[in-house]
């Protein structure tokens, strides 16, 4: 598989909930080394796309493929996909009382190791220290139960903590910016930018330009009614910011 392209490729992806189609033929390719913004009005399938990629059992894929470095992952279990290096920062992370962040992070790191290989204390602790520093977070946070009683902003920051700890190859960030104040936004952006490099590809789902001021995307795609209706450079995001979404909705009607 040495000649496979290092990219996340979504081919003609159709997915539904029950018998209601939501994704209606998404095509997208993100090579490693690039971050693409995904924008679009509410309720048009952005989160669905994100969750289908990571294998949320709520959704049924009816057609198409998702290729990670050339391998179709749609038949894989969610944990298998994660171990391939796909990571979703959820729009609404769940609260799991009774599971501490520390324990959770350790087990998630361990899950990526080969049989018989242990996450050493130094590896874990070293990584944790540096991630917490980037996020300006006190170490005591990891003794708390996963997201229990966290504010919206803390939950988002916690998603980035996991991202930093798990070293994914492909990240998908689902409206990580919503509910964050400017300071928190900068911290989150710093976390993502610290990972940026030739080995990281990803999708940044957002409504607003403001996150993209800090994480400048290589490309921008607009999703309306379960399809990519327009792709372009960073200037496309700026256009949406000033002109709103009405014109893209027209594109969808024209394209349908």
């Amino acid at each position: 598989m040495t000649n496979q392209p290092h990219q996340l490729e979504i081919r003609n992806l159709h997915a539904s909930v029950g018998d209601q189609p939501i994704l209606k033929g998404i095509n997208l390719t993100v090579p490693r080394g690039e971050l693409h913004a995904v924008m679009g009005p509410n309720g048009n399938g952005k989160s669905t796309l994100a969750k289908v990629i990571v294998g949320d059992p709520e959704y049924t894929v009816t057609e198409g493929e998702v290729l990670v470095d050339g391998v179709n992952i749609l038949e894989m279990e969610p944990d298998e996909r994660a171990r391939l290096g796909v990571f979703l920062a959820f729009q609404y992370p769940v609260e799991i009382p009774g599971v501490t962040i520390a324990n959770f992070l350790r087990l998630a790191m361990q899950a990526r190791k080969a049989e018989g290989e242990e996450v050493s204390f130094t590896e874990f602790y070293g990584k944790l220290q540096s991630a917490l520093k980037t996020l300006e977070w006190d170490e005591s946070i990891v003794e708390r139960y996963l997201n229990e009683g966290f504010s919206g902003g803390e939950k988002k920051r916690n998603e980035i903590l996991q991202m930093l700890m798990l070293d994914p190859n492909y990240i998908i960030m689902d409206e990580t910016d919503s509910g964050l104040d400017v300071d928190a936004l900068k911290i989150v952006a710093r976390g993502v930018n610290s990972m940026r490099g030739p080995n990281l590809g990803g999708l940044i789902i957002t409504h607003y330009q403001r996150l993209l001021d800090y994480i400048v995307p290589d490309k921008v795609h607009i999703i309306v009614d379960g399809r990519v209706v327009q792709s372009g450079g960073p200037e496309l995001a700026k256009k949406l910011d000033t002109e709103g979404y009405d014109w893209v909705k027209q594109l969808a009607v024209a394209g349908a």
Partner: protein
Amino acid sequence: MTQPFTEELIAQVGGPDWLRNKRRESLDLFNTLEVPTEGVEAWKYTRVDVDFSELRPHGKRERVTDISALPASVQKRLTSTDVGAYLVLDGPDVVYATELPTELREKGVIFTDLKTAVEQHADKVQQYLYSVVPAEVPDDTTIAAPGTTPSKSPDPSEGKFSALAAALWTNGAFVYVPRGVEVELPLGSFRVMSEAGTYTATRTLVVAEENAQVTFIDEQDSEDLPGTYAIGAVELVIKDGARLRYVSIQNWGKGVTHIQRQRGDVGRDATLNSLVVTMGGTLSRTEMQSYLRGQGSDSEMLALYFANEDQHFDHYTLQHHAAPHAHSDLLYKGVNADQSVGVFSGMIKVDLGAQKTDAYQKHRTLMLSSEAQNYSVPQLEINANDVRCSHGSTTGPVNQEALFFLRSRGIHKELAEKMLVTAFLEDVLSRVPLQSVVKYIEGIIAQKVGAA
């Protein structure tokens, strides 16, 4: 048809005259009662299919002088426990014991086995023994306003096993803490059994005098023992202003039927914190009853259980508010895997005069298998008009959203499920300030989760 136990057995277990008389009366009662049937509300979902004529008492075991001669499971526990003094019972009698620290003895604290206490502390034992858990079922009929329908009275057959425990108990722990004395380190008893096809009847008596404070840990553990019965009674006397923490950890081997009534009599401004842990045995019926006798008394009632394979766990609880301004807070959490059955009957009773009662009850179960069953029967009988009572029960599978979240981070499904089961039981444990006990329980849970 149940065969009567004979007088001969009384001679074997012995005791002074007053005790023998009591035993004889109890045995007579036992012989007149039936094993509770399906028609008895408090036993609706649990059948004990026992042929008493086939049962013989568990054999007596020699006392040992060294821990290394004890069963392996007890030895292991003893290396990690932090109790200040303990008894080890194998079947009917004590096989090993440690002494209370001198300092506590000098303050008048007594910790010994009940048989010895009957001889050496006759007055105290005679005063309290059978006062909280008598042979018959305690009459918890509520006091209602004149002219209103009285609440349901218990069925006499609910006294079947307590009558047995009253008649034929062989030994158990005796704890006495004098007025105002605080015992810091917990005291404990480790019970094992080692002979299949037998029964063992034990009795524990803990007395905390006014403003005294003590923790007692009652652990039961054995190898697999087919057709074996452990019948117990635990009497807890908590005088005005006293505080008692009672922990019972049932981890018998397969084949054991465990039937134990635990009851606290809680005085004015006194506190009883109980924790019931049920992990072992094949059939288990544990009753935890708080009789809130005194004004301003308080009872925290916690439990956790994990039933798998063909285990049948029945938890019966009572929060009987007999005085005003008392508070009770119950949280029972359980896991049912495989073909196991869980039963929870939780009673809140409030007498006519018990105004300003604050009673809370919550039972939550996690179902890991579609073949497992769970019956939850909360019941309220409220005769006072200015009270706060609430109860709730939830049953459901592992939270699928949480499971997906963990898996989306690369954690394998099996491990993610185990994490969630452990997490589910965690909040009960987080309320128990006994580190070594919590560790021990977490160890048992980890084992059971691993097997599930």
